[in-house]
Every structure is written in C-alpha cells, then in structure tokens.
C-alpha cells in the first residue's frame, strides 16, 4: 500500500465529515419516546462494532407524504410516500464511522423511505465490492467517497455501522406502521 492509497481511504471529504459531524446531536440523548413528536413515526437504533467498541445511536422521524394529516400514522404503500423528516445521531468512533454517520444524515434527510432503502442497498454493495464497483456520485453524493473503504475489509464494518443503525430504525418504523396499535419494539 502506498501513501496515496491511504489517502484514498482517508479522503479529505471523509476527514472533514469526521471533524464537522452533520446531524450529530451535541447533547446526550434523553430517554427515547416513540410518541414524542406528533405526526412523526419515531424510531431509534443503537449499534456497536464489537471489534473496536465504536458505537452509534440513530434516531429517525418518518412522516407520511404530503397531504397526510399532521398527526396521522405513516401510511402504507397505498397512501402518500412516507418521508424521512428527522435524522439525528450520537456516536463515538473512528473517523470512518463518524464521517459515514455525518454523510448519512446529509443524504437521507428528505428522502422517501423507499429511496432511502434503495440507497442503503447501493452503499452496501459498494462497500462489499472490494474495490470492484465504481461509485456513481450522481446517486451516492458524498457517500461515494467511501469507495476506498471497500479495499479494506476490516474497515467495512466501520463505514456500515451508521447505515445498519439507520436500516434497523426504518424497520421499526415499518413494523409499527404495519400494526399501528402495537407499541414500537
């Protein structure tokens, strides 16, 4: 490995996101209250990378698409597309995992849930490609900078950690939407 390869891993955009963490809560999270915001379906996921102890908590708020009543539950596929309205996180970890969370916050806010899920799949395929997939910056935006991570299998987990937390939170939203009477898991 040459120094330029290390610089491909630690691209400036990644170092910047690691330093100026978008969407990161500066205050410790209070107790999670799934019903804390009227009209929003809230979910939280905490993930730990057991290899190194990195951890992250992601909180998302999903709102039913335009036209839905302010406090209506998120609707199913037949209704307006639900949109990710809130994305906040708190974490402690290496520059790769922290930058990944920052990019994730920028990328996901405002997307529909199905757009977000598709992007998670694209990102995961990129990271698992061991450098064989050329990232589409049009689709991935800043997340394309993590292509270099795919050549370092030991670091793929670092970059994926926030995305896995986000995905788990979306699954909770989906589960709660499918059975609105049941409490969030």
């Amino acid at each position, binding site marked *: *490995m*040459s*120094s330029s*390869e*290390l610089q491909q*891993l*630690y691209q400036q955009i990644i*170092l910047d996101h690691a*330093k100026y963490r978008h969407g990161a809560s500066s205050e410790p999270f209070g107790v999670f209250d799934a019903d804390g915001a009227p009209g929003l379906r809230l979910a939280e996921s905490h993930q730990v990378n057991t*290899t*190194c*102890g*990195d*951890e992250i908590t992601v909180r998302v708020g999903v709102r039913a698409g335009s036209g839905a009543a302010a406090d209506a539950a998120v609707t199913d596929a037949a209704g307006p597309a639900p949109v990710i309205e809130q994305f906040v996180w708190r974490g*402690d*970890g*290496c*520059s*790769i995992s*922290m930058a990944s969370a920052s990019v994730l916050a920028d990328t996901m806010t405002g997307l529909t849930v199905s757009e977000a899920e598709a992007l998670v799949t694209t990102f995961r395929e990129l990271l698992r490609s061991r450098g064989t997939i050329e990232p589409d910056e049009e689709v991935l935006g800043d997340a394309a900078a993590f292509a270099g991570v795919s050549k*370092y299998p030991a*670091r793929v987990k*670092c970059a994926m950690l926030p995305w896995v937390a986000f995905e788990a939170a979306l699954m909770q939203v989906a589960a709660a939407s499918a059975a609105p009477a049941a409490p969030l898991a």
Partner: protein
Amino acid sequence: MTLSAPSFRRAAAVALTEDEVARIRNDFPILEQRINGHPLNYLDSGATSQNPISVMEAEQEYYEQRNAAVHRGAHTLAFAATEVFESARETVAAFIGAQPDELVWTSNATEGVNLVAYAISNASLGLGGPDAARFRIGAGDEIVVTEMEHHANLIPWQQLALRTGATLRFIPVLDDGTLDLAAAATIVGPRTRLLAFTHASNVVGTINPVAELVELAHRFGALVLLDACQTVPHLPVDVAALDVDFAVFSGHKMLGPTGIGALFGKAELLAGLPPFLTGGSMITTVDMEHAEFLAPPQRFEAGTQRISQAIALAAAVDYLTETGMDRIALREAELGQRLVAGLAEIPGVRVLGPAAGIDRIGLAAFDVAGVHAHDVGQFLDEAGIAVRVGHHCAQPLHRRLGITASTRASTYLYTTTDEVDQFLAAMHEVAPFFGVKP
C-alpha cells in the same frame, strides 16, 4: 513503587543486547515478512506473540513421531505420547515455580479463570462434599477484583456472583494507572472470599504489588487468583514465592501455540476443588448414577487433551529459559521506558498509566487527541507497524481513564530498538496526516 519492585531488578543479570536480539529474530520466520512494502514491525505481542522454529518443530515432531491418546491405551505410541505430555507439564510447572500436579492444562487463561469460578460455583451447590466446603460462597460473601482487569478476569466473577448471590466489589484505579491500595485495605475484609487481580495490566503496563495484595487477602482467609498473562511471558514469575493460591496464563502470549494455557493451583486447594468440565479421562470408577474423580490435575482435564499444544508450549518455555527470563525482563523494561519517553514527547499524545521512569512492562498504550485509535492503527499499518487498537478487553479501565479506545504498542524479546524508534517516528506523523493540530 518500592513495595512492588519486580524481582528481576534484583537479579544480577544484564539486559539482552541488540546483537542477541538480532540473532533471536532469526528463529522467528514470520518476522522476515514485508507488510505494505515495509519490513513487519510487530508491536502486538501483548495480544499474541510469534513462534520460534523450535516451537513449530516440536508440534510437528509430535504429530510425525508420537501422536496417540494420552493416559490410555497399552501401545508404544500411547506411552510415548503420555511421557512427552507429562514431561511438558513438568517443564511448564517448573518455569513458574510450581509442582507438576499443581499445573492444570486449559485452553487459555480465560478457561483457567472460568474453571476456578465454576468449581467454586459447584462447591456452592454442595458438590465435592466436605472437602469442598471451604470453597462455598453465597449471599453476604464478597469477591473482589480490580478496575484494571481484562474482561477475562472480570466477567467470570460477575457471573459467579450472579449464580451464588455473592457480591462483586472492585479496587479502584488511580489517575496514574496504579491501584488505589488505600481503598484496597478498606475493601478487602472479613467478607472477602476471593481476590482476583492482574499481575500486570495489559493496557497501562502497571506491575501490581502482589505481595502486598496477597498478604491483605490472606489476612482475612480469602483466596487469591493472579492473572499472570502479561507477566509469565515477560518476567521471572515464581508462584510459590508470590504465595498466590491460583494463577492463570496463556501459551500464545509466550511464544507458544494458540489453544493452550494453564491454571496453577496450590496442591491442597486443587485437592478439595470439585471439577468444572466432566467426562472421560478425569474419573476412577463410574456407574450409571455416580462417578468418582481422579486426583488433580487430571480431575480438571476432561476429554482428550491439547497434547501437541502442551508439548509445543514446553518448547516455548525451553526457548525462554535458555534466553533467560531475567534478561528478557530487563530488555523489555528498557523498551517500555523508551516507548513511554518517546511517546510523551509527541504533541497531543497522552500515555496511559505510569509515567516515564516508573516500572512498567514493555508496552505502552496511549490516546492521540483528535485521532481515534482505529485510525492511528490504520496509519501505522501502512508503515508495516502492527499495534493493537480498541479497548483491549478492558472497557471499565478505559472508562475510568475517560476514553473508549486506545492504541497499544507491546514489545517482546525479538523487538529491536530500531523498531521502537521507527514506531515513534511514525507516531509523529499521525496528527499531521489527519489534519489535527495538537
């Protein structure tokens, strides 16, 4: 640290020289490797050490010449295997100042701690009869550990406390990475049944005052278990002189193979201790309802043993003994001091544990302001330097020191001064690379 001055300081020995280290390196083929275009600079022996050729040959020779089940069978190979297996026990026991029947093979130190914890648990259920009564614990009894323990010497005691209703307490760590001995004197008391602590910290490198802690525990009739994982490979250790009741260590940290470690227990204690794992090879007579158990150490060695690993570990011990543990200890003490002094000069680097000039084993863990340990490790790996990053299986200690992860460089008898210096030079480049201004 006068009370805890390690015994190797009193030895009339001199440290291994640079030339001797250069010769030693010829015995370790893996060190010839290049990593990312650089010679491998292996500074992770605290996690696992490398193997000399003699250790690998011992294992191969066993499989080529003597492989058979030990302690059973009436054929020549079975006798040969048993002989070399028991001879390995004698070698390793002598290395730590124990009698052969005081040394129980385990998979690693973790299994050794669990063996004692589960045996105490079994005694507390009434197993083992009157001989085991002294090991019974329950509500009102206390198990004491320290805040600097590796998870292997913490979680088995947490679990034992949960199973028995005993209370787990701990001796706190001071800001300088030493134990709060004043607090220890108030925590260890009449309720204490067992004190488990590490001989040397795998993170901060502190060498704990064993004699003082053993005296404290024994004053109240409490048993002492010593985690010797970071000392048996690096310092002369004599468990009889230290008067500990139990001690554990792992083979792979002392030039041996993985999958083998040992538990030392005083003969009179092992004699009363009920077994942990049960099955074949640890019994005398068995009927459908009952079994009678063998005397130690076989009572604690159920099933077919790690024969080749035990033999290879004895070869590792021979290698260490021939090199001289006192000389290895002095050499690593020098390298440990060089690491600490060099790291302390780097802006933004905080060395954890004892400051330069204070006794420590040959390792140093540190925090780099603004750069996560994982990133430090990645940067060093580019230069062929292998270090450990993360919590080093000591999350409570890291929390106590106000961090979640650190980077650790650890040396061994094959580490050169140049390697330490190359590591220190690379460390100067870490903060600039990540754009952090200390």
